[in-house]
């Protein structure tokens, strides 16, 4: 059995499904509520949840506060719009471990540390990230959750910017600030903060490579600049050559900006061939459309253009 931890704010439309999905695995449900006025708390009470008012706490403070009520059991943190689809009954008190769960979000598959014990602390005031040593073993929990993209506000951006001021030498606040700016479509600000992040980040880590990919996406689709797009994509590919997303974007550059459809077609083919070899236990995010459907569509379009049946796909 596992303790389930959810932070809520006016989630009456989704919280019931979330709670229904964890009924078979939960020992306790801990709800931290930010002052819901829509009946969310009443719904949670029907599930015998323990409810706490956490109105003045940041997300990391709220999660750590709820951890105090967990004994030695494992905890699962969820969002109030998520549904637990699959779970592993064998998970129990493996106290020294952290567990990944698979998160399905439309066409994106992501992996997140969702299961942990109370010894771990959350460090991020907006996004749930757990503070852990790099060499600690993180294993697959066998849990799968269906999610949606959460909503971010200017208030969230301000909190992250405050975090950045408090820890000016730490790269994480820059990473998350850039992510928020990207989700808000503030592209100029995103490019600026991402550049700071590249400067301050010392490890060639997954977040750094993914940030370079997002940076390349913005340079390609917003700025329509070939050189910075290719420079960043080359760095991404050298680290993770089996990411079909990277090959597809390379194909897009040659398709939309350089308009060399022969070369473009080659890169879409690479997305299918090389992407098909990506290991299943690879915990990097995956956009499943880029492994088959999208490159196939683009190869067809390239062939039509090359055969003078011009059907240029506009983006």
């Amino acid at each position, binding site marked *: 059995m596992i303790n389930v931890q959810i932070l809520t704010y006016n989630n009456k439309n989704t919280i019931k499904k979330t709670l229904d999905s964890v009924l078979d695995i939960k020992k306790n449900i801990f709800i931290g509520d930010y002052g819901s006025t829509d009946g969310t708390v009443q719904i949670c009470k029907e599930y015998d949840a323990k409810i706490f008012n956490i109105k003045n706490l940041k997300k990391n403070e709220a999660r750590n506060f709820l951890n105090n009520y967990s004994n030695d059991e494992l905890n699962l943190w969820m969002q109030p719009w998520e549904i637990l689809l699959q779970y592993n009954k064998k998970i129990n008190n493996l106290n020294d471990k952290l567990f990944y769960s698979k998160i399905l979000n439309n066409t994106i598959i992501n992996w997140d540390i969702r299961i942990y014990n109370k010894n771990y602390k959350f460090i991020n005031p907006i996004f749930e990230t757990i503070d852990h040593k790099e060499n600690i073993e993180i294993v697959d929990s066998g849990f799968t959750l269906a999610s949606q993209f959460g909503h971010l506000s200017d208030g969230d951006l301000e909190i992250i910017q405050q975090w950045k001021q408090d820890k000016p030498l730490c790269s994480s606040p820059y990473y998350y600030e850039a992510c928020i700016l990207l989700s808000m479509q503030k592209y100029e600000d995103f490019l600026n903060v991402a550049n700071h992040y590249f400067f301050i980040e010392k490890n060639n880590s997954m977040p750094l490579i993914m940030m370079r990919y997002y940076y390349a996406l913005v340079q390609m689709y917003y700025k329509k600049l070939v050189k910075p797009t290719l420079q960043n994509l080359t760095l991404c590919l050298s680290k993770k050559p089996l990411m079909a997303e990277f090959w597809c974007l390379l194909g897009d550059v040659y398709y939309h900006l350089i308009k060399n459809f022969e070369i473009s077609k*080659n890169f879409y083919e690479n997305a299918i061939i090389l992407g098909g070899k990506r290991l299943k236990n690879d915990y990097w995010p995956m956009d499943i459309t880029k492994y088959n459907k999208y490159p196939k569509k683009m190869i067809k379009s390239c062939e039509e253009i090359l055969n003078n049946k011009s059907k240029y796909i506009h983006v």
Partner: protein
Amino acid sequence: MNILKLYAELQVNPQNKSVIRQISDFYEKKGMMNESMAFKELLEKKTHDKCTNSNIQ
């Protein structure tokens, strides 16, 4: 062997089999066997496609 240079060359000529082979060797030396095998398969595919295309022509 500079991997960034190899990728830059591949962007100019994605059919360059020598470059694909060198990329495969690079990952093999790094112990990234899955990546190395994937590029070997890509090399085979490119070779096969070229033979097929030249036969058609």
